[in-house]
């Protein structure tokens, strides 16, 4: 379903866009996490570690030698790299700064979801690799959630692709930008709500998972990375944060496509860079503020929440055929 729009606009432009998006992702991600943590801390009446703390944490972890259990297999070493690589690829493919269709790399919906799944599987294998009960437990819960999340991502974006007639994410964002009326119809609203829910679940935030818990038995994401340390842990943390940036960036650009560049012109890219940064930080702060008022769902009610989001996505698809 890949459209050939703009394939001829040059490899150099594509490289420029990809480099810009990667620089943005690497620079803004720790800031985004810092803003989210600080927002939450301030709203709870705590001082917090400051906006720069995630940067310092990752820098510290990356400079540390990883300790690996005897008998561990290369999965322990490769899974963090795979996670970071897949997350970076995600950041490159998702239209964050520009909707320029990339030369020879498809920014297609199905490709993006597959890349997302690659990171998910890498994490799950890492959890199993440690051979501890916690890792296996975390992986099992993680895959349960993933199995419910991925169809919803596919379905809700598919609903948005129906009016555009293409499954290329860049084209969808571009079309929505050119036709602002499409932003406020039931199709769009339902699928954005469904997407927000799955992004929360996929990135392990409240009410699905509690990223700040110390209770091993309740963990999902944290349980899988319990046995990793030093550099490995640094990459795992950073890779997971990058996924948040990519998914959140995709949702905000679908919901509010203004400011996204259409090509690789320097001024457009700069505007795109500034607007996506602002959109990400504001949305992150809002998400963190909402988390303050939320408790963690009982594990067996998480599927209910995700099934609900799937229903929204499904309704959105049905509606898209009725409306268009």
């Amino acid at each position, binding site marked *: 379903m890949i459209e050939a729009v703009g394939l001829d606009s040059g490899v150099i432009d594509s490289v420029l866009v990809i480099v810009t998006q990667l620089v943005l992702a690497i620079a803004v991600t720790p800031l985004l996490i810092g803003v989210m943590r600080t927002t939450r801390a301030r709203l709870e009446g705590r001082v917090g570690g400051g906006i720069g703390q995630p940067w310092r944490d990752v820098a510290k972890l990356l400079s540390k030698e990883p300790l690996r259990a005897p008998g561990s297999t290369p999965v322990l070493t490769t899974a963090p790299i795979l996670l970071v690589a897949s997350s970076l690829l995600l950041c490159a493919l998702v239209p964050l700064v520009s909707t320029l269709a990339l030369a020879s790399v498809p920014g297609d919906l199905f490709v993006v979801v597959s890349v997302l799944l690659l990171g998910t599987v890498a994490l799950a294998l890492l959890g199993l690799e440690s051979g501890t009960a916690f890792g296996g437990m975390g992986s099992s819960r993680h895959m349960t959630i993933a199995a419910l999340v991925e169809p919803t991502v596919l379905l809700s974006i598919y609903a948005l692709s129906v009016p555009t007639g293409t499954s290329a994410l860049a084209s969808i964002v571009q079309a929505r930008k050119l036709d602002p009326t499409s932003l406020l119809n039931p199709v769009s609203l339902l699928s954005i709500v469904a997407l927000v829910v799955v992004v929360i679940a996929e990135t392990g935030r409240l009410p699905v998972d509690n990223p700040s818990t110390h209770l091993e*038995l*309740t963990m999902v994401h944290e349980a899988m990375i319990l046995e990793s340390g030093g550099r490995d842990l640094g990459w795992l943390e950073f890779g997971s944060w990058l996924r948040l940036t990519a998914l959140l960036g995709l949702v905000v650009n679908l919901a509010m496509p203004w400011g996204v560049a259409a090509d690789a012109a320097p001024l457009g890219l700069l505007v795109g860079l500034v607007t996506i940064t602002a959109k990400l930080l504001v949305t992150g702060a809002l998400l963190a503020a909402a988390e303050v008022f*939320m408790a*963690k769902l009982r594990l067996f009610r998480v599927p209910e929440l995700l099934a609900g989001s799937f229903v929204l996505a499904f309704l959105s698809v049905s509606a898209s055929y009725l409306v268009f």
Partner: protein
Amino acid sequence: MTRLAPPETVLVTRDQLAAAMATQLQRGLRLALVAAHEDGPLVRGTSFRVVHVFLGSAGERVEVVVEVPRDDAWLPTLAGLSYPAGRFEREIRDLYGIVPRGHPQPYRLVRHGHWPTGFYPMLRDADPAPTFGADQGFPFVEVSGKGVYEIPVGPVHAGMIEPGHFRFSVVGETIVRMYQRLYFAHRGVEKLFEGRPVADGIPLAERISGDTAVGHSLAYAMAVEDALGIEVPEHDRLVRALLLECERLYNHVNDIGAIINDTGLSIVNQHAGRLRETLLRHNARLTGHRLLRGAIRIGGADLASAPDLALVTSVAAEAAELASIATGHGMVANRLDTTAVLPPEQARRLGVLGYVARASGLAVDARADQPFVDLGERFEVITRTTGDVRARFDVRVDEVAVTARLVADLAARIAALEGSGSDSNASASADLPTGPGAGLGVVEAWRGTLVHRIEVDAHGVLTRVKVVDPSFCTWPGLPVALAETIVPDFPLANKSFNMSYAGNDL
């Protein structure tokens, strides 16, 4: 009501023990403490004496004493009559080597697998530095079947909590069975008491379990006073009751936050932490120590300053508001309701104490059952019947309100006594009478009924101190409450029990 009547002592032989025990249980008394003693020559005793203490809900105290020759050290097990008795027997076997014959669980309790066989640390001639071997593991019921797997947790945990090992057998996410292994924090506290002059026992008692400094030191002081026949003036008894309530207040406020924190609504915990800190600073003004150490002494208790009633009232009101915010939150209420139910019948059989018992409908409270001071009309025992996490949470919330009222009443009565000048400082640092004697101290500490039984010789030196923290009786309730609970709800269930490891392990 200055002092309860001295305990009724029943001397029995081994053969009569079960019948004597059954008699007391049928009277409605509960087994509160079993202590073994080594009698005879100082270096190596020739016989053991096992004292069973029963407490009733109307101040009754009964001691059933049985003699056991050292070279034929066994007792018929009473585990079939009373679950706590079975646990005490295992403890005594590990520490003194008295074998409970026919015990259904003939495994080690206190001594882990690496302790040498035949080494009993409480004996007078025990080697102070035995050679420890490799850990032999521990027996637990292995659940087998399709899809059953085990999750070992601890003793080192991810959070700042005490050491304990939990072995879950799980199908999917549902707990089939949980085995808990405690006694990682066994420090030999009871042995450390031996040979100390009675006054030196207070600092040690305050450190048995850090959050129960008043509870333990008060139970210890009351046991010593009981043994030596010391009268405590009413003013000092009121001060003691006040301190006990202050301890309950800061711990319950902390628990309200901690339980809700485990549901992920951490803002409640942040505010509970702020309230706790306010109370700790208030404690420091009251006694000079944030955890209320140093206020209780043999024969009395002292306050450095009068309590700030406005502060206590406002903290209690804020705690109630926090609790109502939490329970009014649909997601939080869903996590608390019907989670980890301890049915009343099970609670009664296991002999659990404190808020855990009261949340399962048992009105066990030493402030009503074994009072050392009249708390007035505004005191009430809070109970719930559902026995779930919500019930244990609600009991704490209501007890905070009762405690705040009690603090106000007690402070007013203390001020009235001080104003009338009827209370002189006569009790302060008078020479303590010496023994010999034996005494019992029973206190409703914040976790539940706390019992100390001490024996002192003619020189005022402690020969035996037996401590029963409510945790010892309540820990067995946790695995029972976990039936049908899912693994991710365990931390919440555990926090709602919030039993002491140090107080249990001694």
